């Protein structure tokens, strides 16, 4: 399966230890900047119910869903326990020339 790199935003548009929502061609993604200044990307909706994770809270390597407080490791997509049971899909990400790009398959 081929991937296209899609520009998301300027690297500085995301605060450290925070997340933004990125919509592209009818799909929604969550793009994270970790406390260590690394970038990650996952599907934008919680796997429990269709809630945008970008409204949630980033703590270290965890994203907490704003509706039911379900937690995922946004670096790996791993669901960390009830009420989330299904892992998040993650996407390759890179920063080039001050911009963030994610690879959408």
């Amino acid at each position, binding site marked *: 399966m081929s991937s296209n790199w899609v520009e998301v935003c300027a690297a500085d548009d995301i605060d450290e230890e*925070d997340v933004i929502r990125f919509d592209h061609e009818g799909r929604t993604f969550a793009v994270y900047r970790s406390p260590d200044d690394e970038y990650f990307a996952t599907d934008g909706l919680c796997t*429990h*119910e*269709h809630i945008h994770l970008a*409204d*949630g*809270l980033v*703590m270290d390597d965890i994203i*907490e*869903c*704003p*509706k*039911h*407080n379900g*937690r995922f490791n946004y670096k790996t997509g791993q669901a960390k326990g*009830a*009420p989330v*049971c299904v892992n998040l899909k993650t996407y390759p990400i890179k920063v080039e020339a001050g911009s963030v790009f994610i690879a959408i398959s």
Partner: protein
Amino acid sequence: MTTVPTKRDYSLLGRDAEMAVANGLAAAEWYHTEIPRKQMKELMKRDDGPAIRDTAIWLGSMVLFGGLGIFFWGTWFAVPFFLAYGVLYGSASDSRWHECGHGTAFKTMWMNDAVYQIACFMIMRNPVTWRWSHTRHHTDTVIVGRDPEIAVMRPPDLLRLVLNFFGIIDFWHALIDMVRNAFGVISPAEKTFIPEMERPKAILVARIWLAIYVTTIGLSVYLGSILPLMLIGLPRLYGAWHHVLTGLLQHGGLADNVIDHRLNSRTVLMNPVSRFIYWNMNYHVEHHMFPMVPYHALPKLHAMIKHDLPAANPSILNGYREMIPAFLRQLRNEDYFLKRDLPPTARPYREEFHSEPVAAE
């Protein structure tokens, strides 16, 4: 013999459950007051400090009052100590179960989990079952046929409400559920909200709890004294009144089947003792709108968004003065509810839900 169905079918497998899905009320998009992301992040920030302090006071007071109750056992001096112990056991556990279930009370997850398990045992709510039922309560708050935690159904069963001030109905149901789960049976209603992979955990907890209760009863029989049960089990009855007193105010008498927490939830300003026992859940509109905000930040959240909310009830008494007449009126007309007036500064939402013809003046 035939039974006459009420207008509302609260069964999670019934007519209204199907209607809620068909009408788009299930897992709907709910109203939120707009808060800038930077301020929201500040509000959501987790901190172990307040919850460690409050938990130390809570459990420390239980040890103190329980100890004094044992010391004075057999005299009238024991009564006030058991009354205090009972409220900490049978009522403060309700809010601890709730906050730690959300995972917001402490920053450190194992602390949330530990207090959650202790509080669940005290309030007799299976930690697995109730985590999932509360998840549904937040998804479909007071949506008939979807929300498994509607405390006052319409028409209200006032006898049940009164008995529950002494924990009687809840205790009985909790006991039956525990024994049923301990024998490996998950009910059809529970199956609607507990995923299959989680059900063995619910059964395991029920078995552990049953063993604790059997041991406590055995100890009481062995000692020929009710004292062990006064410390474990019975406080769920004699100490339940405060959590019922505050809990009924959360949604009682307000609209159902609306997707705006400003209309179906109530914020009540309370005295500091009740707020400690209730862990600030008196800010109930705010909690439902933003469940990721920890209890200790709810007063700040309230101050920030009150321009967009109905006026808070100024006291518990004031809340009951509007709620009890609404319950009585619902006995004659179950469609009646208290319509919440939004302030002029508030944003309206889904107007069709705001203008029910039977709403209060």
